[in-house]
């Protein structure tokens, strides 16, 4: 015995310790107790809440939720509502443009910054700061810049181009693009950052190899780098897509759904039905449709991402 004689004097008895497998439930008991808030949030709030809403979307709940079955009536009404159809169409336009725009701008900016640019830190700070601002602030400032009497349009006209017209917020045909300008301004910085991290993660030897093989810069990006960044693109795609479906605050702040109903979006439809119109059943049905949309987006991603390998 090395240091003291008294060590483990009590350990001499045969079969001293717990010789039987402890009860499963009490194993790791501290960890389980500590995880209770998470378990509650996951099971009751997220899972329970979602199931509750889906179930109640098949009822005729009005001012208060009630379990009187109404079959698919709410959904029929939903798909017959012009406002909902406009919302869906708007979300589709905004979604496609925002997805492509954010990816293209985000990647281009990242690629430009990755060319060993002087002052990269300053530029990155400028590109990303809008992301720190809320959609409310974003919506309000762009509402102001796009104001036809005092904003961009009047400035350009003041410089001599009298016929210049750029008034998206009052033109129902292009109002979604007014929102898009603000949305891209707010969100592209994040994607740029993620793309930049992805670019920095690529082995420098790849670039050397491409140079030795005589492949041009643009071609190297398209043929070599982008395919290598597939996971980064997939993550960005999911981030952008899940953000698009939640689009709400920006619309409220920038256009309030106007002019008329021409910039309504599904999330706003849900909020109006549930908290404005005392038409809970409609709100539940509409939010269930939103869930379905997300599932359609998420399931292929999950298969792509976790299909082959199982982690953890």
């Amino acid at each position, binding site marked *: 015995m090395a240091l003291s004689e008294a060590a483990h004097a009590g350990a001499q008895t045969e079969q001293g310790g717990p010789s039987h497998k402890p009860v499963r439930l009490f194993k790791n008991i501290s960890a389980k107790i500590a995880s209770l808030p998470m378990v509650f949030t996951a099971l009751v709030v997220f899972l329970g809440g979602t199931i509750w809403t889906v179930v109640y979307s098949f009822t005729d709940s009005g001012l208060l939720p009630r379990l009187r079955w109404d079959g698919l009536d709410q959904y029929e009404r939903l798909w017959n509502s012009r406002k909902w159809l406009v919302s869906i169409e708007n979300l589709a336009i905004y979604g496609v443009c925002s997805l492509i725009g954010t990816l293209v701008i985000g990647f281009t900016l990242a690629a430009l910054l990755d060319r060993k640019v002087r002052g990269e830190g300053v530029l990155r700070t400028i590109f990303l700061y809008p992301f720190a601002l809320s959609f409310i602030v974003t919506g309000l400032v762009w509402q*102001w810049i796009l104001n036809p009497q005092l904003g*961009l349009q009047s400035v350009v006209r003041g410089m001599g181009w009298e016929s210049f017209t750029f008034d998206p917020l009052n033109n129902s045909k292009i109002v979604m693009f007014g929102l898009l300008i603000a949305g891209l301004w707010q969100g592209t910085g994040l994607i740029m950052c993620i793309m930049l991290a992805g670019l920095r993660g690529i082995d420098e030897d790849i670039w050397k190899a491409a140079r030795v093989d005589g492949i041009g810069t643009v071609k190297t990006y398209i043929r070599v780098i982008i395919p290598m960044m597939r996971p980064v693109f997939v993550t960005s795609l999911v981030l952008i897509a899940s953000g698009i479906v939640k689009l709400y605050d920006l619309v409220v702040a920038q256009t309030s759904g106007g002019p008329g109903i021409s910039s309504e979006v599904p999330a706003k439809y849900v909020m109006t039905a549930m908290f404005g119109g005392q038409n809970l059943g409609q709100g539940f049905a509409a939010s269930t449709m939103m869930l379905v949309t997300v599932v359609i987006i998420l399931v292929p991603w999950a298969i792509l991402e976790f299909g082959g390998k199982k982690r*953890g």
Partner: protein
Amino acid sequence: MANPGTLAPTAAVNAVNPDLDEPRGPKPRKALSRTNIMLYGTLIVVAMYYALPLYVMVVTSLKGMPEIQMGNIFAPPLEITFQPWVKAWAEACTGINCDGLSRGFWNSVRILIPSVIISVAVASVNGYALSMWKFKGSEVFFSILMIGAFIPYQIMLYPIVIMLREAGLYGSLTGLVLVHVAFGMPINTLLFRNYFASIPEELFKAARVDGAGFWSIFFRIMLPMSLPIFVVSLIIQVTGIWNDFLFGVTYISSPDRYPMTVQLNNIVNSVQGVKEYNVNMAATLLTGLVPLVIYFASGKLFVRGIAAGAVKG
């Protein structure tokens, strides 16, 4: 580029080998090549697009109303006035209350502090339990949590109204705090889980051999090692909760208790009266000030935080 690190070896090689015709090492970049002009030109134009709104906000908020109506929004103020800021902070009206955004500001602070503390505490323990003390089903709960982050919040809004009402918390700041804790849990738990998972497992094993338990390892070993990730999580939560509009408008029933974003929207988008653009922009800036200060102060950590949260998600 005059990078001393790349120039020095070149010079050294030349010193040893004076006969070398061409310098080795990276070719020094010409400052005014065509590609460079294109590159910097593009970047500067784009940077202006990004910087413009902030500039417009500041400039407008410092002008008087007559000057706004006359001039153009990009022009710097001829006469700087802080009156719009004072008015936005202390006098602007929402409904019957005319004590300005200060009310919303203090509401937001009262929501922010407990929400951030509780959510960071809960998320760090979650992440720790999930990475080091996995138990049967822990991964399932975590997966549900993560899926919850991608689902439109609208689908859970009403059931939460019912839960809060049952608990007697609907409409109160406490209720909103709990909602923020719940919805902040996925991303922050993920962040902490990934961070703790990157700590060598042997450290955890060594602590267990040394007789430390769940809480002892957390407080004595893991916490002192995880300051950076706490800062990242803090930044994410402060900006996220400060910028929230949806939960504030849903779970706060009285305008007295509205958080700043909701109050701002009500002030600016109220239909009555003449629009005071300078006051509106001052109010908008005031609301954006907290996340902006955090953003500019934290610099790299902010980027790291969102990138870490996003890329690994």
